[in-house]
């Protein structure tokens, strides 16, 4: 598919979505599968904030929400990736130095090499996401009666993600394994990084694991062997978790 065709189809999709949903809020971008799951889970998945993606298109955004929630699902242990704003984190990263591979050596020639010699693709992370999401959704439509990734039941979503992880899905324009690698890395980053970067809302993951965040001063607790650190986390921008 050429670039212009792709853009045009994306525009069509967006127009349809806007027509369907008068107020375009983040809630409207929720994965359909999440809406079909149990009420309790759907509630924990509902982001309270509104955020409009700057880089991702509407259909990419829908994919991202669904995929992040499978990578780190909400459950009785604590919040999932969507509740903590991980898609927002990833969208913001796409427009930063990481998304543009601004600090990577990106001069050619680009050769294939043993995996131990590291990333050798000319594609920036933002390009990998764009091509990767399109390829996965196309794959899903072909395999599952024209349903996109986000429309699949979660067991099928998991098997698609596992296929990417194991490099079992072969795409023309992007390595599925590389795409999965960025997606998983960035999802964990958004889940565990300081909230100033857009994810880990209310320091939800830090509270779950017991990390005090940016407190960064533990001189009075060094010799308290075996005693749980008593203070809740703080973030760089202030505020307690």
């Amino acid at each position: 598919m050429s670039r212009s065709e792709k853009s045009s189809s994306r525009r069509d999709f967006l127009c349809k979505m806007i027509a369907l949903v008068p107020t375009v809020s983040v809630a409207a971008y929720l994965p359909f599968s999440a809406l079909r799951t149990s009420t309790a889970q759907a509630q924990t998945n509902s982001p309270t904030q509104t955020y409009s993606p700057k880089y991702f298109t509407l259909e990419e955004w829908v994919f991202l929400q669904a995929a992040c929630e499978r990578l780190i699902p909400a459950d009785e242990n604590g919040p999932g990736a969507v509740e903590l704003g991980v898609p927002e984190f990833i969208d913001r990263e796409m427009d930063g130095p990481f998304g543009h591979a601004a600090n990577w050596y990106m001069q050619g020639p680009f050769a294939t090499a043993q995996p131990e010699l590291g990333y050798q693709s000319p594609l920036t992370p933002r390009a990998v996401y764009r091509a990767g999401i399109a390829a996965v959704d196309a794959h899903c439509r072909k395999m599952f009666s024209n349903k996109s990734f986000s429309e699949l039941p979660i067991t099928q979503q998991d098997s698609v993600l596992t296929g990417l992880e194991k490099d079992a899905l072969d795409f023309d324009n992007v390595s599925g394994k590389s795409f999965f690698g960025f997606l998983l890395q960035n999802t964990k980053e958004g889940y565990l990084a300081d909230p100033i970067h857009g994810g880990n809302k209310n320091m939800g993951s830090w509270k779950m694991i017991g990390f005090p965040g940016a407190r960064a001063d533990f001189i009075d607790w060094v010799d308290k062997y075996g005693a749980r650190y008593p203070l809740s986390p703080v973030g760089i921008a202030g505020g307690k978790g």
Partner: protein
Amino acid sequence: MAMVDIKKPQVDAVLIGFGWTSAIMGMELTEAGLKVVALERGENRDTSPDFAYPLIADELTFGIRHKLFQNLARETLTIRHSPKGKAVPYRQLGSFLPGTGVGGAGVHWNGQHWRVLPEELRLKSHMTERYGKRFIPADMTIQDFGVSYDELEPYFNQFERVCGTSGKAGNLNGTIVEGGNPFEGQRSSEFPLPPLADVYGASLFAKAAKDLSYHPFSEPAANASRPYTNPYGAQLGPCNFCGYCERFGCYMYAKASPQTTILPILTKKPNFELRTQSNVVRINHDAQGKRATGVTYIDAQGREVFQPADLVVLCAYELNNTRLLLLSGIGKPYNPATGKGVVGRNYAYQMTGGVAVFFDKDKPMNPFIGTGAGGQVIDDLNGDHFDHAPLGFIGGGYIGVIQTGGRPIQQMSLPKDTPQWGAKWKQAIKDHYLYTVNIQTHGTVMAHRDNYLDLDPTYRDVFGQPLLRMTFDWKENDIKMTQYVTGKAREIARAMGGKSIEAKMKQFGDHYDTRVYQTTHNVGGTIMGDDPKSSVVNRFLQTWDAHNVFVMGAGVFPQNIGYNPTGLVGALAYWSARAIRTSYLKTPGPLVQA
């Protein structure tokens, strides 16, 4: 070659790069009355505002996105596993993290401040004497440094005083002192500061190690345990165990760095000038390559500038020092096919392994309580402190618990069978984050004939100059070493009282993996020695070829030592500076006759 746009007035000495060795040289040469210019490719930066709290407590920006390190978009190197392979660029930072900017890697090191073992400085002689010539494999090109521990002792001492290093002597003037490292070379005085306090995990390690008849002690730490004023008058504050040390600048003025220990004094001197965003691209020299005339650099505006100087000191990161000599045509490039030539010879790295100890939930280990250095270590399996004859390898390493932080993206240890994602991964981070202690093993890598550095034939930097090419892979000797040492670490781990343990170490057949952080302890390429046929610089770090060119840094190590390199790098810089001040400046010429 482009025309030079600007020619600067002559100076006595030019320093290439502005990290630890440059700060030391700058201090020494200005004290000798020389007019000194330091050229740093990166930007200026200081504790305030660049490392200030709370922005420094940001794992993503500093730890994961590498804010303080070399920007590979401008310059990197290529890597391959053997001389037959095709090298590809190190496009993303992974295995090692070269610094850039004022302070260099001295800003974001941990402060693990070791000396060297006396036998490691004369490794080839020592191994030959004890085990016979045939004990050294044919393709292993180890050699002696050409300087002895006793000669360097005053300079180790001096660098520790500058850094305000915290520790406990184990060998004070030949007397073994309880609580220190009984295997170390003798010290002429106690550490300037007492050891840092131990976190829980380190104390459990020390107890288990002692029960197994090892000799645990506090790792020497250039993280101040008390307020300290160094001999230059620079002041350090005490470390508060913030857990943001390696990969970060220290907001507490507690970690020794050029900024905290030397620059406040050096940068005020009238005979010293620092120029940042000045990227040296070559060393200029006379037609025979026997005498440098100065250096050429590209300034922030892209102009080519010639800086004439009587003395040129390479103080860049060790890989860049090798590259600059190769780009400048100083010294004969090494050829692995013939074994002839020296520049790029004996590149080596560091071997690391570890054991994770998982505890039950009644024992929170609070991993976020961290210092860059310190903790408890043993040296029983380093150097030649144990009989190598039945083991069939050369080298060793230290084992210890040095809890540097619990930053959750990078420092999360999970059992191997944990899925990488999904509800089970999430369960695992909740179950293990607070309850895990990591034992590290950190050891030698020997030099081998086909591990080396040269210029890449294909890839170029932002200025159009060839990148450095690294040819390196793990060798059998070093895998044997880590399997032995990490195997012993596993025994200590079992005795620590956890519910389960998991060891991680290199296996035979493993290739060097550039994607996974190991250490920024790259060594060799501009090695020191007593013979111009097998070394680039003499025992005073003066190049054999051009007497007014000196090379600092871990590039002068003929093979890697078991310890972290910075203590030896700093001491060698003071040792070299002393030779320049007492001998070279009086009668410029070779300090050692070839």
